[in-house]
């Protein structure tokens, strides 16, 4: 697999396809290895789900892909280019617990648009309409319900029309109805051409969303395969056990 990725990173890729090349990626903090020797590459559009038990390194990997954590080893290339603030700016990350500014719903979206140099109330309202929050436009953001807050975080992320949308267990604390809404929005964004990376440890959710799956365990990449292949015939014993509902340590 490693040989393959190295080839990938060096060959030119069509600019229309999302292209991610991860090479020997590792992350240590205070002597703990949270992630080691992770290599894979992705050329498909659609939704890639990062799966694995707690502490597998999913969130760390997501942040390394986004360029908001400095890797201890290895590299991440997008479209053949190493990570840079430029690339981070072309992406958007939605956290498990949304970080909303202490402002109105509208101002939260306006802020990101302004930092991208394109303040536009029309675009803002469109983004809010997309997540069903247009009627709350002047509402204080931090007075919204948990599900609404996460939808606002999504609207804020999508308003900038990112190339890549990264989500870190965005539905972990939400009720089923709210989960459904979020999944719909994400699926819609993906079919609109945005590449999505979705971290979850909810197997049902992964089945609903994934086109391909990256399975992590104890900071290592165990599998990267198409969703159908992964769910029908997992290669590693850890993935088999995980899908069977066993508790992995």
């Amino acid at each position, binding site marked *: 697999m490693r040989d393959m990725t190295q080839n990938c990173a060096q060959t030119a890729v069509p600019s229309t396809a999302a292209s991610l090349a991860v090479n020997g990626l590792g992350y240590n903090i205070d002597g703990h290895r949270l992630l080691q020797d992770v290599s894979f590459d992705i050329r498909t559009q659609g939704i890639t789900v990062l799966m694995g038990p707690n502490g597998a390194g999913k969130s760390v990997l997501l*942040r390394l892909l*986004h360029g908001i954590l400095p890797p201890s080893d290895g590299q991440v290339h997008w479209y053949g280019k190493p990570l840079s*603030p430029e690339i981070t700016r072309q992406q958007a990350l939605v956290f498990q617990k949304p*970080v909303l*500014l*202490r*402002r109105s719903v509208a101002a939260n979206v306006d802020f990101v648009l302004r930092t991208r140099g394109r303040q536009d109330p029309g675009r803002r309202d469109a983004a809010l309409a997309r997540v069903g929050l247009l009627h709350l436009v002047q509402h*204080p953001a*931090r*007075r919204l319900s948990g599900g609404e807050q996460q939808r606002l975080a999504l609207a804020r992320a999508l308003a900038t029309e990112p190339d890549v949308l990264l989500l870190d267990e965005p539905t972990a604390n939400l009720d089923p109805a709210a989960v459904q809404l979020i999944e719909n929005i994400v699926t819609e964004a993906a079919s609109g051409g945005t590449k999505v990376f979705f971290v979850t440890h909810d197997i049902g959710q992964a089945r609903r969303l994934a086109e391909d799956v990256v399975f992590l365990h104890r900071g290592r990449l165990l599998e990267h395969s198409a969703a159908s292949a992964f769910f029908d015939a997992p290669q590693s014993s850890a993935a088999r056990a995980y899908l069977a509902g066993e508790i992995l340590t």
Partner: protein
Amino acid sequence: MQEFESAFGLAFDLILRGDRDLLEIVWLSLRVSISAVLLACLIGLPLGAYLAIARFRGRGTVIVALNALMGLPPVVVGLIVYLHLSRAGPLGFLGLLYTPTAMIIAQTILITPIVAALSRQVLEDLNTEYAEQFRSFALSRAQAMQVLIWDGRYSLLTVALAGFGRAVAEVGAVMIVGGNIDHLTRVMTTAIALETSRGELALALALGLVLMVIALAINAAVQGVRLSAERKAYA
């Protein structure tokens, strides 16, 4: 203890009558101290925000120094400003000694460390919450500082209030650089000091009461703003 009784009577009398001299003194006190607070915020908030975000060698030392400067004795600040603004001093040509401007300068120096040190604390907590999102937005440091200051605005109001309290209550600095000149640089605290030295203790106390009423009103107003902010979960 009869001073207390007559002080209350005098204070009411002064306020109800709208005593012209008193109004002049109150207005100058507010003008000087509010200007000083605004200037201190102009300098101290960006400094506090910078220290909240930036990581550099010697940052700990800077923070310790700033915290220590919160205890600057007003008289020392007054003296330093006097020595600079005196005709014999390096800035004497500006002719600012014994003017309200000199008093504003002295109080600004006195409270800027307070604003910077306290806002650093407030904004560092806020930054802990926002930092990852800021990195995801790929904000520049200046942009991040702006967001912190704006989103921390209601907590920072309390910081500004702490600065105002210190400024409006100090007498040492304004006495030296203002000179307590009647109708020119006399403020509440120097007037209180003057009446005390005249042995007019009841009048001094009455002025003190008026000062406390003003401070109370300003604090209540700020508290009101904060409460309405908390209802929006902005504070």
